[in-house]
């Protein structure tokens, strides 16, 4: 799994590429937490490169969303592939997360 982070205006765009599971999720947690500790509160997760997510990955995302909510921040997810979308739907995450089709769409709402 690869995590790329870049700042666009006031929004931090985090692209997750590859597979997010019990092995790779801790690296995602560390990198994103670092950013939040630095004061970033507006995040867009670009998941167009994510081809697999397990419950460990869902756990990371839920933890992140809760953290940002406490800081009155914002988290938007975009570009979910079908297999990831299926996991989000089954686990009820589609209704608790703000999800956009594309990165452009996610950025427009910021």
């Amino acid at each position: 799994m690869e995590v790329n982070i870049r700042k666009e205006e006031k929004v931090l765009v985090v692209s997750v590429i590859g597979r997010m599971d019990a092995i790779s999720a801790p690296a995602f947690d560390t990198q994103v937490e670092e950013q939040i500790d630095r004061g970033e509160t507006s995040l867009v997760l670009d998941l167009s490169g994510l081809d697999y997510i397990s419950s460990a990955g869902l756990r990371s995302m839920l933890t992140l969303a809760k953290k940002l909510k406490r800081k009155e921040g914002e988290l938007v997810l975009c570009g979910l592939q079908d297999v990831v979308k299926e996991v989000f739907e089954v686990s009820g995450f589609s209704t608790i997360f703000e999800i956009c089709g594309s990165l452009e769409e996610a950025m427009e709402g910021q």
Partner: protein
Amino acid sequence: MSTPKRDQLRLPADLEYLHGLKSFILDYASQKGFDKRKCHQIELAANEILTNIISYAYPEEKGDIRVICDSDEDGALLVQIIDTGVPFNPFEVDEPDLSLGLEERKVGGLGLFLAHKMVDEIRYRRQGAENILTLYKRKTD
């Protein structure tokens, strides 16, 4: 004596071997003609069960995970995942409440729930010192 047609693999219950255990199951499933989407569902279910065993089955001493892949006469896949760790019945775990909002939603507890959703059936039995969990997946919906 005839050799059994089933495919078996035994590896230590360690995250290091998660990939190997999953590949073994996936190779078998694709060999049997399961399509990409179904293979992904099988992978996810197996992943959750295996990760669970790796995290909780052997709290003190180390142990192994044994995987046996088989298929029935209808072409359905049967994956047995066996450990000799602490007795663990996946049906005794509470399901997550999917109606809760972000703040109320508990972190964790999704793994087994996802596994149940990704295959047609999960069976569990404790036999002697073994937890035997079987994933059952049909080839067609």
